[in-house]
Every structure is written in C-alpha cells, then in structure tokens.
C-alpha cells in the first residue's frame, strides 16, 4: 500500500495527492502502532466523507431539486426532480446539460445521463456517521455490496464528473486513485461507521 501510494505521489506530484497520501500513511501508522483496525477504518471513512460532503457530490443529493456551485446556491432556473429523477416534462435535465464535462460556450456542466440520485440517497445535512450507515445499507444504496459501491463510485458517469467538473468548479478534494485507496482500506479494516 505504501509503495503504491508513494508511487502515486511521485507520478502525480500534486499537492492534493501528497496531502491525501500523508493522511493514508497516518492512518496506517495508527494501526501499526497499536491502533485498532476500527480506528484505521474510521480514519479512512473521515477522508472518504470529505469527498461525499463536497458540493460536487452533495449538491445533487437533495430530495426535490439540486443546488449548484461551490457555494451550493439554488438551481437557476428552478428545476424539479420529476418522476424519473431527470426533470419535469418540458424541463428535462438534458435540455441544458450535455454529455460532456463542461460546455465551453455556456459553462453548463454535463455528463452522460445527467439526473438526481434516488431519493434513498439523500445525504444533505446528515452527519458523516449517518451517511456511512446510509451508503452501507443495501435498501438505500441500490442493493450494492461494499465492492459494488466502489465500482459505482469510480465508474458512474456523473460521479466521474465530480473529479473533472470543468469551468471554475472545484473538484472533489482528492484524486480518484487516493479515494480508491481510502475506500479499499475502509472496507479491508471492517467498514466501520462513526457513532
């Protein structure tokens, strides 16, 4: 794990990657210096939660309408979820949101299949412990296993967008490779959730 992460650090060379690596190493240290697997797991989850609670993710995890921007403002124009989570008849998400990261002329973000997440996946205003229990619950997470969650997080077109949102939008706070390492560590050490 450390070799892998140092490799990422060396190749990416980015400050963000380096910061992420430092935290993983710290989490690893906790375990090797007598800290329990549970502590390592919780430390990893805290880092994962910084991604899930970032505006790029949580702006859309709302019941009726998304928020937009790094300051999480209401969506202008007003939009509603609609029956299929892709907007109302006559006002569909893909009426404005194209299939690619960012429209260079209008600055409207895009990804394949732009939509709101299901109502069972609402994280806004939840504690990181509640988000953790929510995403582990197959009744709320689309019937996914823990490995299924990671696969979803790295393959879904809309989640991909959060890593490369384009325009002046801030991306989620760590590279996808580092996120994956934290996630795998969290799973390997028992996928614990904070109380």
């Amino acid at each position, binding site marked *: 794990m450390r070799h892998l992460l140092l490799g990422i650090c060396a190749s990416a060379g980015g400050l963000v990657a380096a910061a992420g690596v430092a935290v993983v190493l710290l989490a690893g240290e906790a375990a090797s210096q007598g800290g329990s697997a549970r502590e390592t797991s919780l430390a990893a989850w805290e880092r994962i939660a910084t991604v899930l609670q970032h505006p790029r993710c949580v702006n859309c995890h709302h019941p009726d309408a998304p928020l937009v921007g790094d300051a999480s403002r209401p969506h202008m124009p007003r939009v509603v979820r609609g029956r299929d989570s892709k907007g109302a*008849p006559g006002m569909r998400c893909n009426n404005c949101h194209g299939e690619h990261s960012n*429209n260079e002329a209008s600055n409207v973000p895009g990804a394949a299949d732009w939509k709101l997440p299901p109502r069972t996946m609402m994280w806004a205003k939840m504690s990181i412990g509640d988000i953790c229990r929510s995403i582990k619950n197959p009744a709320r997470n689309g019937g996914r296993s823990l490995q299924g969650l990671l696969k979803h997080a790295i393959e879904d077109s809309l989640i991909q967008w959060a890593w490369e949102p384009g325009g002046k939008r801030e991306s989620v706070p760590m590279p996808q490779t580092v996120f994956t390492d934290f996630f795998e560590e969290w799973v390997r050490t028992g996928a614990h959730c904070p109380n």
Partner: protein
Amino acid sequence: MKINVNGEERDLGAVDGGTPLLWVLRDQLNLTGTKYGCGRAQCGACTVHVNGEAVRSCSLAVRDAAGKQIVTIEAVSGRIADAVRAAWQRLDVAQCGYCQSGQIMTAIKLLASNRKPTDADIDAAMDGSICRCGAYIRIRKAIHQAARALA
C-alpha cells in the same frame, strides 16, 4: 461537418465543433426565428427540438448535434404545434415576442408528454423560459387552451 435541420442535411463546411448550435442556426443557416438571450442556458430563448427534446441550442456544441434530428420554430409541425400556435394567436400571447420561439418550442414538448397539464405542471416546464414582458399569465392560459383543443 453536416447536421440535419428541419429534415434537411446541411453542410457546415469546416465549422469548429465547439461552436454552439445556436450560432450555426442563426449566423450560418439564417434560421433567425431561434433567439439568442443569455448564452448560458438560463433563459430558454434559444430552445429547439433535438431528437425530440427541448434543448437549449446555446448550450449544445454543434459536434454533439451532428447525427441528430434538429427542428426549429420555422418548421415545427404536427397537431400539437398547430394547437399551440393557434392558442398563441387567439390569446395574442406575445408582447415584444422575443422569447416566444423558445416558449412555444417548450410548450409543445410539455404537451407532447402531458396532455392535461395543471398550473403546477406548466410552471415546472416553463420555468426555464424567461419573458421580460411578463406574459406568463397568457402563456399559461394558452397552454391550457391548446391542451383543451387537443383533448
């Protein structure tokens, strides 16, 4: 690059693929019924139909419109389009008229998927279409009238 507009293949020559469809429609193909309002998908004035969806043409790169069926206000047709146009004329909906092309294209798509819209349905569909003259009450009335004509 070629695009299909109003049933015809149109050759755009060496157009930059990132050019908004709206610019191509207005400046290159001279289809000026579709209006430029904000350029940021905020106002709805540039709405055209792309593969049956009411798309903001300012926010669609022409490369992404290639291979799709584009219909503009100049050629939109059918029972629903006729009913909407008739209601618009009967109620004299437009004041300055600048936004009306986008309003009509959106109203047609609303009625295509909801033949009996409530006020709330109409508001949800038309919220992305701004009218600076404030003709919203007549727009809503015209959509109800078109819906009744189609029933």
